[in-house]
């Protein structure tokens, strides 16, 4: 589990992990509605992380705990 920050970029969401300084685009997010947001997220570099599905944050950027499922660290 690690803290990540999700922000809005020019082309959709951008993933950032301060601990490892990984910044990448989010290619897909499992749930992206105001009521249910999060789930499995896939990154441009091939990494897959999991965010506990929750109500969409009122404002981005937003810090949240995420679990690494697969891919580069």
């Amino acid at each position: 589990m690690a803290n990540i920050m999700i922000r809005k970029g020019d082309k959709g969401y951008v993933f950032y992990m301060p601990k490892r300084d990984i910044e990448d685009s989010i290619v897909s997010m499992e749930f992206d509605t105001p009521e249910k947001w999060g789930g499995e997220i896939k990154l441009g570099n091939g990494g897959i992380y999991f965010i506990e599905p929750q109500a969409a944050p009122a404002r981005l950027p937003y810090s949240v705990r995420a679990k690494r499922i697969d891919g580069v660290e």
Partner: protein
Amino acid sequence: MGLLNREEAEALIQEVLEVYPEKAKKDRAKHLMVNDKKLESAKKCITSNRKSVPGVMTQRGCAYAGAKGVVWGPFKDIIDISHGPIGCGQYSRGGRRNYYSGIAGVDSFCDLMFSSDFQEKDIVFGGDKKLAKLIDEVESLFPLSKAISVQSECPIGLIGDDIEAVSKKKAAEIGKTIVPVRCEGFRGVSQSLGHHISNDAIRDWVISNRDGKLDAGTPYDVAILGDYNIGGDAWASRILLEEMGLNVVAQWSGDGTIAEIENTPKAKLNLLHCYRSMNYIARHMEEKYGIPWLEYNFFGPTKIAESLREIASHFDDTIKEGAERVIAKYQPAMDAIIAKFKPRLQGKKVMLYVGGLRPRHTVGAYEDLGMEVVGAGYEFAHNDDYDRTIKELKDATLIYDDATGYELEEFVRQVKPDLVGSGIKEKYAFHKMGVPFRQMHSWDYSGPYHGYDGFAVFARDMDMTVNNPCWSMFKAPWQKPAEEPEAKAA
């Protein structure tokens, strides 16, 4: 020798790697690449921010250097206590020329060195009492200081002193902000983690001090982040922003103050020059206060004009007009500088090996002068820096991460650049090789290099280094081909 093409560059890397033992070779190969502009991400081609291979001469610094030397040192009214043995503080004092306006030792403390001078007994019995005593002394000797930061050196982390507790207790006693910074040198692989730790310390101990008490400010408030005022850089940047109608509320950290840090949350846009050392706090402010941030580049007229327009695009028409006015005002002067120096510098090749932002930010300035960057590398960059760098550099440019002394020398020997820009540790090695050299960490005792005023200095300095007559005098007279002896005798 002309510019390298891709095959030559790759062959050169292979040749340089040849001397390493198998394991080191495998590791170092990952840190060297040939630029390919088509790449979206540098990740697959270059590895960065990894521990240096033991036994090679790395040029990196430590977390303490990144925290005390880079981020905290230039704040002028904060006293930075180097907590630990005396050496770290003494050798990191005043080498970086972060200019400030103020009186040293009265209200400004960049030039002074404060250290707890750890002795054996402090290691054995702990140094917390000494730190408390030191803070009292500092407070009575320098009452005009506005804050104190405690920069821990390696032993503090090793013996487990509780500098946070001392800081809290003393801060309540003297009524000033005291920030413990856990920047022990052994943390991380380079100075980069020191930047991160300092940013986190500012986030945790300083930035929220005036939450709820700040006035709304003007719609044109901006903050300059990551400009350390080396040789007056931040001043040369600041006047451009003010001329276009913006209101600079804070400078981080060159010529900055603690009040400016506390006032930064009212900025409408954070302008980030050194991305590597200050992006952390910019991201934090974006999340907490909703302040967008923007990277800009104030090296060379092309990039300055681009950046001014990009900054202006975040504001209304008065600022956009202001930006155009500023660009138009300085353009004739810039054209004159380029007309003067470009013929002298046209086609010269540059190799850079610096830190932070310069290997990519100065590319535009060199290109304005007709020079070409044939190699660039960072001491402590991360992957996101290389992502940004590959876009700036030409195809087939050598890129080296955490290069060793041997690799640098070998690259320079083979590529034969007309100018090398790197740090003080490399400077004399290249001087001895007879290669023109500029110390690009603190501008070789010159500066500023940022902004329009800085470009004038930059162009002059590059010219006087590259075209200096001394480089033709490297051969002793008796090593030169013999002249006609009769002609001399007569």
